[in-house]
């Protein structure tokens, strides 16, 4: 699609400082990208460890390992860490590393802000986890146990420092996300190489531009809701406090006005990178480029007007229920445009099945299931039965894990040789893929049926009729967690050595980043490439 003259790296700025100072002070987009991605990877395993404890508690009926309060903290932290600590920072890392390479820019537009945005994250993560660990030495009552959307009025639900720490974390993460988002918008709009028209940009860049736009619109709402919660708790305001004339439903509206676009914020980066991978391994150009760009914008727009389908049992008026049902169903149209384009991308290609392609195809298969189940959930006739049951848990893991995580895994395998200059162990990669596919389904299919049978979410202990499904699900989850350790081994092995990767890495790979050597030099495109 594009041909470019690879810019040879000048060592104008000299070499980066050695050791730890390089990583603390770096403003280089590649270094920061790697920092972001490593942070996301570490948090992925911390969040995973938390949910292993939760699944261990749910292995059998009865309370074995955890007190209910501890259980609430663990699934809350799992969700907060996975969404804000793992997937979002990982996607931000990808954009940091790749957007300048893809659009032919020397760096992000605001490199220092970029550094600041990253270094907020570890502190935010520590802040979130401190109350959890303090409780073991008898200080405080633990971390927040409200669920990741704090769906309930927290005033009566839980006292103690946990929620305050979570509120501060949310503010910090918000600042970090906003700096990242503003950086993306400014970079994409101002730093493109000559000839890189908007409608020539790779879809990953488009997807991130739209993601950034959504972040800028909804993160302030989330932060404001968190601020209101803070002032309610400590400064005598009554935004959400029913006993004093506040409105607990307001909190749900604000959180979900943020929360629904947040779902797409998690997914859009993956939707953007999947077409690249499918096209590469089918040895074909991207199918339906324009259609995909418009579909992404359509989804972005729709995501702002459907939020209350998360609150259909909260007693909305009839008119609102009907509106949110029909508007939500509309999302199925642009989403299926994307699925159609993914099928078009592989149709009549000359496919090979390297690990990234396997993950991309796995993404299509599993995300398809998440999208289709998402189509039936807003049907208000049945929604009362799905809402807050394990049906929902199963559904959103098909979108977040089957979509988000599979997409990120595909990205790891696709660009890892580009980042490191070495090929990873293909056999182990495939093993990782098949283990992930099998145990992912073993974990989440039973949850769907437990939900249909009437099992609510967020419960630390369950009635005997749900035993069989929970047992299967827990065993699947342990094996799924275990098989992810293989990823660590593969990545470490690849970083430490392996056969050299070429600049193009994959036979069918297109795009500016593949015109550079692997790994790309520290400074790239200081003279902008020309894009035909």
């Amino acid at each position, binding site marked *: 699609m594009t041909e470019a003259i690879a810019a040879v790296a000048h060592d104008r700025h000299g070499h980066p400082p050695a050791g730890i100072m390089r990583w603390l002070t770096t403003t280089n987009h590649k270094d920061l990208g790697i920092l972001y991605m490593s942070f996301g990877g570490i948090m992925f395993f911390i969040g995973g460890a938390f949910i292993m404890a939760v699944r261990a508690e749910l292995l059998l*009926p*009865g*309370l074995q390992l955890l007190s*209910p309060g501890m259980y*609430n903290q663990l699934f809350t932290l799992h969700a907060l860490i996975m969404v804000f600590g793992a997937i979002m920072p990982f996607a931000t890392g990808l954009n940091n590393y790749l957007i300048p390479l893809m659009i032919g820019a020397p760096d992000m537009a605001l490199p220092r802000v970029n550094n600041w945005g990253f270094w907020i994250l570890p502190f935010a993560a520590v802040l979130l986890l401190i109350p959890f660990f303090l409780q073991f030495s008898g200080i405080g009552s633990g971390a927040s*146990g409200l669920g990741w959307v704090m*769906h*309930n*009025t927290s005033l*009566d*639900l839980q006292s103690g420092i946990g929620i305050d720490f979570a509120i501060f974390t949310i503010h910090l993460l918000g600042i970090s996300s906003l700096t990242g988002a503003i950086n993306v918008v400014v970079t994409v709009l101002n730093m493109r190489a000559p000839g890189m028209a908007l409608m020539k940009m790779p879809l990953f860049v488009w997807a991130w531009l739209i993601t950034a736009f959504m972040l800028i619109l909804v993160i302030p709402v989330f932060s404001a809701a968190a601020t209101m919660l803070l002032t309610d708790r400590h400064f005598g305001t009554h935004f959400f406090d*029913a006993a004093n004339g506040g409105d*607990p*439903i307001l909190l749900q509206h604000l959180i979900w006005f943020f929360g629904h676009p947040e779902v797409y914020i998690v997914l859009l980066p993956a939707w953007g990178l999947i077409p690249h991978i499918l096209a590469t391994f089918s040895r*074909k150009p991207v*199918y*339906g*480029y324009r*259609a995909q760009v418009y579909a992404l914008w359509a989804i972005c727009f729709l995501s702002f007007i459907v939020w209350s389908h998360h609150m259909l*049992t*909260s*007693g909305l008026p*009839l008119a609102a*229920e009907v509106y949110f*049902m*029909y508007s939500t*169903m509309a999302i199925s*149209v642009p989403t*299926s445009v994307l*699925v*159609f384009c993914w*099928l078009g991308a592989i*149709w*009549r*290609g000359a496919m090979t*099945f390297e690990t990234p392609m396997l993950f991309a*195809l796995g993404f299509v*298969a599993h995300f*398809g*299931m998440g999208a*289709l189940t998402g189509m*039936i959930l807003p*049907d*208000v*006739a*049945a929604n*009362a*039965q799905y809402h*807050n049951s394990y049906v929902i848990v199963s559904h959103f893991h098909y979108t977040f894990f089957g979509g988000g995580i599979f997409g990120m895994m595909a990205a790891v395998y696709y660009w890892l040789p580009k980042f490191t200059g070495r090929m990873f162990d293909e056999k182990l990669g495939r093993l990782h893929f098949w283990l992930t596919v099998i145990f992912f389904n073993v974990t989440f299919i039973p949850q769907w049926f437990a939900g*249909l*049978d*009437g099992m*609510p979410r*967020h*419960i*630390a*202990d*369950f*009635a*005997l009729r749900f035993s069989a499904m929970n047992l299967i699900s827990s065993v699947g989850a342990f094996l799924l967690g275990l098989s992810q350790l293989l990823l660590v081994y593969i990545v470490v092995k690849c970083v430490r050595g392996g056969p050299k990767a070429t600049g193009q890495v994959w036979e069918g790979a297109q795009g500016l980043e593949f015109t550079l050597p692997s790994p790309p030099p520290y400074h790239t495109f200081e003279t902008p490439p020309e894009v035909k």
Partner: protein
Amino acid sequence: MKLTGAAIHDESAIQKWLICLFCCNKRHGAASIRETRLIKKQLPLWFGIVFFLLVFEPACAKSIWDFQEPATPVARDSITASVDFLRIIMGIYAVVFAVFAYSIFKHRKNSGTQPGTFTGPRTRWQWALAISPFLLLIYIDYIWMGIPAFHAIARMEDTRTASEMVVKVTASQWKWQYEYPEEGIRFVSSLATTQDQIHNKEAKGEHYLQEVDNPLILPTNKKVRILLASTDVIHSWWVPSFGVKRDAVPGYLREMWVNIEKPGTYRGQCAQLCGDGHAFMPIVVEAVAEPQFKEWVAKKKAEGSAASAAAGKVWSREELMAKGDEIYNRICITCHQAGGKGLPGAFPALAGSKLVNGPFLDKDGRLIKDGHLDRVMNGKPGTTMQAFKNTLPDAEIAAIVTYERNSFGNHMGDMVQPSQVKALR
């Protein structure tokens, strides 16, 4: 290799099938092409099986695709909507996945396909093919499933037309209070499963975690309007067999309705995360025929007048202590734990507590603010300690306070009479 039906059961064929699926691009020999052909022959069969399981299996009676047995018109609406829609999406998934799998098997580099260079539909026929799924999708969303859904919601939300009785449900952490305003009956319903069962010290009963001390009794074949309120946080009243789930939101009165068609016991539980006891907040509804319901109402009313008589009489210490022991182990123990030890950091201990071992009335016989009786009657705002004067009768409050002041190593020696509580309400 012969392409026979028996090949499916041939272990080596399946092995090769898997090898082909996992790493086909490494195999370029003629054997690989033969295997690919074999797979193609088998594909319709495999898809047939999957398609049957996904689409027709839901049609069988009470499959795992169903909700629990429906008992109300709304539940039947919801199960129809769910099963139909599930069949539709499974059908869509089967078709899309078939195309997807066909492409994966057919369009491989090693089968010598020349990659296409197209980037979108080109001919009129292709455009029609590209547009039609979306038209079908819109038809499914807004007509096929959309119109019945609209009617179902309108019916679900119509709580008032022809409603024959009202029940008010008040949620609080972690129990339900049921009130029949017209009959003047009010009682609290909470978990009956023992702590020993929960902590695996004794065998779990059949209805583990789905059993209560006082079930909600409702008449069959009567439209019952249910009003929902909450005293602390948001809860959600859900009985799967009734097809309704509605949040109980503090500060609001929400409503829904049920019309139970068959007598029986229906079980559900709270469906909104409401704190530590969220999993332990079951709902049990016993639906009985109209005459039995009338009998039950008469019995309950008689009990009610006995209770007010109880509030009038003077209780002995032994009576108060026995009653208090019973209620403590039913209600207070969830937070304050056995022996009044509490849970450090979460729930204060009662044993040796300054509050419990302090005075509760001032010299004019008024409640001392933040005294023991005040705390039990009015709760502590901002915590899970609720105002029990809303849910417990005079005698029970008197008994519980007396019991706490003279147990767990507390020796206050005083007692509270139901008449005192009545006067202080």
